[in-house]
């Protein structure tokens, strides 16, 4: 899907480049997995060659683009391409916008802050560091001073963009450390045998051509230091759901597992309140996520069912463009994912997930240092921890801007997590040995 999507985008981008104030970047970086227990792939080091095209945030152009791609040397399975935003504003005024395309919009602080993919899809090439992608469709935004309205509708649905994987001869190819491979073996009558996966590739149009809509109303009187928001979306869940069914192939002594992706609709309704201003603010969001319960699989298949959930999020930000301290807490109440079917196992977490974790708090600090001769250094440290899901992530980013053309970056990401279990379902534990150090250089042109 991603290849065809990239080709289409390429054709779209050419005229965009011509019209918009775009910046292009070329980067080289080295990703190293440093944990001695790293087991995500056979090699710990990857050299990536990438490019990014985006319009500046200050730009008032009708076209907005933020696309990027990267090629891993010698590891094509790590290649990616993403278009986080790509849209055209047909009425670019201050008060009214009619947007066609993929646009990142702030539907909820919870979604923006935690990047759970609840409302807007996320690009999860690296699931520990997801990037928000926009919904794709038609947006109508009205700013009436004290209040704003956003309406969204679309016949198109683009789900989360996860890491690439490949299936060779019934086995998920080992190579992408960010792809969590499903179980390799199956126990049949106390004997454990290898699994031969049969992935039933979905009809892409069936996935993509699914209508969805949303609306948001924001009340923020001028000069007031509070802000209320209400939003509601009805759309397919951004997480692709996997149904599966297994049988034993007697002559080959193999367990055959058929995988079939599907999408479930859900509606998300949210309320949000904020006090403060741009320099210091506190935000509380509560969202009610109600997935559809209609089964999409044959009764003998094993598939997940999703319970409704309330998601609470509290955020506190203080700072400016030079430095910023952020604190956050989120909690999912309800929202259990339970598998039903012959292969379901109450002692094992579901293969499909809806929330990357159920609870977390986070603290992050950003500082920008201005150096002589127009040089600068940006550093960001963040620490995320979940007592409930028993994980910790410590990130450190530093970017040294040598000139307008050249910059160098370094990043470290450390993860610690407990075992996955039915009670402790989260996405982080799967990558607890993917502790990573990255160094890179970027050239802007």
């Amino acid at each position: 899907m991603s290849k065809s999507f990239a080709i289409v985008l390429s054709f779209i981008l050419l005229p965009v480049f011509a019209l918009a104030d775009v910046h292009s970047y070329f980067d080289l970086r080295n990703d190293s997995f440093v944990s001695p227990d790293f087991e995500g792939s056979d090699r710990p080091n990857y050299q990536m060659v990438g490019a990014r095209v985006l319009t500046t945030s200050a730009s008032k152009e009708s076209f907005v683009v933020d696309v990027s791609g990267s090629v891993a040397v010698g590891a094509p399975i790590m290649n990616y391409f993403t278009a986080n935003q790509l849209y055209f504003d047909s009425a670019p005024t201050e008060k009214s916008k009619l947007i066609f395309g993929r646009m990142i919009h702030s539907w909820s602080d919870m979604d923006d802050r935690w990047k759970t993919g609840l409302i807007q899809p996320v690009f999860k090439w690296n699931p520990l560091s997801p990037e928000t992608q926009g919904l794709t469709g038609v947006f109508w935004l009205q700013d009436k001073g004290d209040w704003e309205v956003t309406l969204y509708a679309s016949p198109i649905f683009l789900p989360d963009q996860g890491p690439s994987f490949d299936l060779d001869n019934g086995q998920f190819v080992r190579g992408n450390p960010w792809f969590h491979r499903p179980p390799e073996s199956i126990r049949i009558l106390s004997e454990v045998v290898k699994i031969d996966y049969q992935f039933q590739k979905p009809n892409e149009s069936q996935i993509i051509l699914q209508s969805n809509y949303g609306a948001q109303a924001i009340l923020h009187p001028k000069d007031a230091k509070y802000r209320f928001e209400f939003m509601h979306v009805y759309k397919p869940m951004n997480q692709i759901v996997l149904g599966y069914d297994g049988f034993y192939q007697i002559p080959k002594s193999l367990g055959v597992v058929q995988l079939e992706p599907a999408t479930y609709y859900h509606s998300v309704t949210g309320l949000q309140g904020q006090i403060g201003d741009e320099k210091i603010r506190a935000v509380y969001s509560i969202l009610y996520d109600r997935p559809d319960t209609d089964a999409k699989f044959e009764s003998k298949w094993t598939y997940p069912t999703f319970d409704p959930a309330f998601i609470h999020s509290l955020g506190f930000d203080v700072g400016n463009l030079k430095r910023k301290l952020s604190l956050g807490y989120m909690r999912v109440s309800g929202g259990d994912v339970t598998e039903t079917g012959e292969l379901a196992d109450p002692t094992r977490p579901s293969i499909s997930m809806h929330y990357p974790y159920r609870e977390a708090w986070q603290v992050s600090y950003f500082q920008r240092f201005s150096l002589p001769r127009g040089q600068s250094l940006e550093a960001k440290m963040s620490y995320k921890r979940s007592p409930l899901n028993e994980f910790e992530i410590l990130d450190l980013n530093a970017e040294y801007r040598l000139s307008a053309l050249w910059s160098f970056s370094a990043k470290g990401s450390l993860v610690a997590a407990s075992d996955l279990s039915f009670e402790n379902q989260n996405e982080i534990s799967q990558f607890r040995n993917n502790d990573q150090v990255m160094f890179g250089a970027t050239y802007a042109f």
Partner: protein
Amino acid sequence: MRSRFQLLITIVFAFYFIGCDAYLHDKKMAPEVLELKSTKFDCLKAVPEDLKAFSTGAGEEKKISASIGCVQTALQYFSERTKGSRENGYTAEDLRSFFGKYLLKENNVTPEFAQSLYKLKVAFFGGDQEVMTREELARLISVLEVFKTQSVALAPHMKILVFQAKGKVNLDEVTAAAEQLRKSLQVLLRVVDLSRSDYSFESLKVLMSGLSQFIQGSGQVGLYSDIRSWVPLVEAVKNVFIGQKTSINGISDWSDVVNNMVDLYGVTIRIYYFGNSVNFSNPSDVKRATQLGNQLLTMVENSYQMKRTAAIPLEDLDNLIDQMVEMKLLTFISKKAIKDTYKILLSGMFDPVRRGETRGLVDFNREHLATIRREFNIYLLGQNFVDSLPFDEKGYADRKRILAAYQQFDLRKAISESFHLENIEASAMKAAWEDLGLLLNQPRQIQFDMENRILVQAQGDLYPYTWKSMTWWNLLRTFARLFQLGYGNRDSLNIAQSEISEAMFAKWYDDFNTLGVEIKAFDPRGANGGKRSFKEANFFMYSSDGTGGVSYRESFEFVSFLFSAGFKNVSDIKTMAEKFGCANEAGELDVFGNLRLNEKCLKDALKRNFSRVFPNLPGMAADVRKMSAKSWDYFYANLMAASRGSDPRTGTVETGDIRTMTMILHYVESLIVTFDVNQSDTLDVAEVKLAAPRFRDFAKPSVHPEFLQPWDGFVDDCFANMVVNGAKPDFWAVLKFQAQKALDREATRTSMLRVFSTLKEALKTPSK
């Protein structure tokens, strides 16, 4: 500014790298494993035990239902969760591989057994012998539903069906069990395609062999442990009733075969539960025995092979006997004896044409069967008559009442209601009824006491008739009919008119010698020859006339004497002797395998207990009671001189001696009660001469010189002289006797015994 930057960098990196170690050493991810649950197979563990309990009659209906339900569920799950080598099904190897690996680790199904199961699959559901499709598996599951219902219905009867019922089992329960088996099998037959298949017994044998091996290997014991050893017997039975290479086509034929097999099984369980207890002491026992006989005959008549080919090859019957002996179902008799005997019966008694010729006898055919059926019906008719007799409250009836009942018996009704016969068979029944009347109307009728001993007394009417004695009478009458049928001349179609010649008597003895010796009825030393028996039947019965052959009446009386004296009285003497400690102390056995008896002891015990062991000879018992010791010595000496076959110097008496002794006592008493007209308890010369005609042919050759043509009166005098004087006379002795006969001479039992003693050698040799 610079210092803040440096501080921040320092703090960050210090914090970062100090904490690194905790982050970098996470545990490796445990490999995740999916699981195809085995819970639906778990219940299979209990299935063998439940099926074993079911098959031994100990199964509970709920458990059986649950077990078969479990098999259904497991098969359904298997069908859904596995794929075989073929697109839509499984080869035998697939199943072997799966079950061998996961469920039958200790004892897998052999390739041959797996192929057998597939053959059975084809027989039941059709299709390819190489593959079992999912549709066939689904059908099997649905058939199991029927099987479950029928198993539940059979469960209460299983104890009886598998020979495990303890305690008292009544006939109704046995019949109900067999009928439920029939019903269940017929229902099952209709849900499978067996009737359209060409499934052979050879295939079944391989299947059973595999099953046996499989079950033995799995440690199961009991009913199935020696299943393989029963296969040849089952095959032999199948060959008899169905045929060796018979093709069974269509549901109707299969239904017949199933009925046939259930009939056979029903008979088997009846024999098992009641066979050993059949006696002729009460009406219900006899009714049960006759029902069983009727069931057996009907089963053979309705057997698939008999219906199709009108015959059962003797080769198959021989094989069945071989297998029964092999399985130790027949232990007291050799297979040669059985085979020889049944062929003699077929060629003699039951073949209207052969007259005992066994050459070319290759099958048991419909004619044989018809003869057996006729004789069985004749026996039943007689028994119906006995059952209808008007016994009083004590269970007695006198001769007058018996004869009146015979006259009043509604023969036509009895024949039409009980036998549903065609006209020609009805005629045969009427003729047999007249024969029965002939025996009943004899001046001196055969009569038995309560212990089935033949009553030999001067006034026969004094002792009442009972149901038991008349039943025994009817049974012996049937034996006599068969004897007459087998060895009598066939010039007359009427049994009552037929006679058995001396030669045929000898043939009878020869025919049954092997069997007789094996069942210890005949002396292996040949002491009781057929020709001797002929003379006994011709001389010493009530109806004996001493001439020609043995008539139906003589035959009946002979059989009655033989069975009475030969069994009950002999048995009583032996019991008495053992009670008095007469058994040989050295433990020496005679040719029958019994302990020899100390003669002196026996002689004393017999004197003291004569009336106890011979209550059926009241006249003789009274006579013995009155005897002095000296008289008893003389009596006993003559008796043993006539009876003894063993060496007198041993001081012991053996079984053969006692048998002969018992018969001789009966014969003496028979002569006394027949000819003691004046009821003096002895025979005077006139009475002896009344008896003489039957002995004329025997007495004649003793007259010398031969040129003298003896006339009847002279011969009778010879005989009278012999009886009265106790010695075989010559010419001059007879002349002397002519002078003496005016004197008041009498023949006592002792003197008659002396004649037996004297003529012992002559009795052994054939008359010219």
